[in-house]
């Protein structure tokens, strides 16, 4: 009961924020830089989804994957393609609904398609490559990310190297942060369950995990697939916000950016990933004024953080993940 109440409260808060702060203040309000701030807010949300999901495989299951941008791309293009193809039909059949309702249905369809396709991509990559460990897995996932990008670059139906244009803007602050909440809750609940213990046991000692009856291959693939599905969802939200997709958005640089977020925040800490996503996204924007020196300052910041806080800002600490304790009996 409490749980449903919490979910309802979260949705209400998001709707209220959307209608007041975002619509009235940022987009049409007195603040001159409102739309810019709004854009950063959305990007922060999308990066949180990506970082938290990447943390599931890299931080909790301990498998070093650096191809997250690939799944992000699969989701973005899958959703954009579906929505642009069936968009008119859906609008016609649902003409009895107000336009926000039609958009919502369309966006949810897109997100489902994105999650499904990225999930399938996750299975295809995960089953053969998760037999590999450490550096080898990193190289395979890196290669996979690039394969996806080159693949998209050469498909004309989705724009190829010209980029995918004409995507309707369907996502907004409400949808992005709704999925931020869903992603964070999903990962947190998973980690607190028997599944989460299995993931962490694989990170700590694969041989011991297997000896305790954890089917390590199956659980590695499971965490990989869940992680890639959320990357796909983030992709769908991204495409329907920017209204334009280009393969160059999804290079391995994007994957590294995500890795940096979770390492800075602390591998194996959900709040760490959120913090990392916010910090990196905002820092990159703040330093925009420095022009060509932006990346130099960014790198120095990274070096300083890693020197003084190698375990990341949060370490593996977590306030969300209090161990459940049995009440005294």
């Amino acid at each position: 009961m409490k749980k449903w109440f919490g979910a309802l409260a979260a949705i209400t808060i998001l709707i209220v924020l959307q209608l007041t702060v975002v619509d009235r203040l940022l987009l049409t309000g007195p603040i001159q830089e409102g739309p810019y701030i709004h854009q950063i807010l959305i990007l922060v949300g999308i990066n949180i989804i990506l970082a938290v999901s990447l943390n599931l495989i890299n931080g909790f299951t301990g498998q070093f994957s650096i191809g997250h941008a690939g799944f992000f791309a699969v989701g973005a293009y899958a959703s954009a393609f579906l929505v642009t193809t069936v968009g008119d039909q859906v609008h016609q059949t649902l003409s009895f609904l107000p336009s926000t309702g039609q958009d919502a249905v369309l966006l949810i369809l897109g997100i489902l398609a994105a999650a499904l396709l990225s999930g399938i991509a996750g299975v295809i990559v995960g089953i053969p490559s998760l037999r590999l460990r450490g550096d080898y897995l990193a190289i395979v996932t890196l290669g996979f990310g690039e394969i996806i990008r080159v693949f998209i670059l050469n498909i004309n139906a989705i724009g190829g190297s010209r980029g995918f244009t004409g995507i309707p803007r369907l996502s907004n602050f409400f949808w992005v942060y709704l999925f931020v909440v869903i992603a964070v809750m999903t990962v947190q609940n998973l980690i607190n369950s028997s599944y989460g213990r299995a993931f962490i046991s694989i990170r700590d000692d694969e041989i011991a995990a297997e000896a305790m009856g954890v089917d390590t291959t199956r659980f590695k693939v499971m965490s990989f697939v869940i992680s890639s599905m959320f990357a796909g969802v983030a992709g769908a939200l991204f495409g329907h916000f920017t209204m334009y997709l280009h393969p160059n958005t999804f290079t391995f640089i994007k994957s590294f950016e995500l890795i940096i977020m979770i390492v800075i925040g602390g591998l194996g800490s959900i709040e760490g990933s959120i913090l990392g996503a916010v910090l990196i996204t905002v820092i990159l924007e703040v330093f925009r004024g420095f022009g060509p020196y932006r990346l130099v300052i960014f790198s120095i910041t990274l070096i300083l953080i890693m020197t003084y806080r190698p375990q990341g800002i949060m370490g593996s600490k977590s306030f969300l993940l209090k161990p459940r304790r049995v009440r005294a009996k």
Partner: protein
Amino acid sequence: MSILEVANCIKRFGGLVAVKDLNMTLNQGDLYGLIGPNGAGKTTIFNLITGVYQPDEGTIKLEGREIQRAKPSAIAGFGISRTFQNIRLFQSMTVLENVKLARHMRRKQQLFDAVLCTPTLHREEEEIEVGALELLKIFSLDTVAFELARNLPYGSQRRLEIARALGTKPKLLLLDEPAAGMNPLESQELMHLIRWIRDEFKITILLVEHNMKVVMGVCQKVQVIDYGETIALGTPKEIQDDPRVIEAYLGGA
């Protein structure tokens, strides 16, 4: 009734034959010792039984079921649990979580329950925790239940590993050099603990040890391995007087 039956097992690593024609029969409730000098192949035998390696020839049967081709996780599910020579705890997990993990394969929760935190999950998690705490109490580890496993002293880590192995509710428990790094007094206590576990949990125990005293004190039946070959099999008394065993341990005259 025999619980574990190893028949004509051979394991080769390249040109080296690590285990030669191994035969071994454990009966229900046995406390069986496997000894031999360093490098004799004892741990390899453990790895064969638990599925880490697969034998090149021969069969391994648990309660009549052939298990030599199964994955380690499946074998754990059939009821064989083990500890490791160099302790392998889940370092970043708490003591309690280490034992809770052992219940993983008996879980009833589905992925769906975990993500949505359903009542099924709450009920099961609470049940797991109560069970794990009880087990920790037996090994007097309940006071450190919320400490990280890596922060425990050596002796407690050994006990925790045994507790975790018992958490899977095994029929057969394999202990790989449990007395390694212990002083004589600690090994003495350990022997009592091992015998007590066998009686309390009504399980069969296979013990690998190169410390002769531990094995002689606790096992009813001992098999001596040298260079992958069985050189003696019998009661501790018979083994002690066997000239081949003396030769393997002390070198030929």
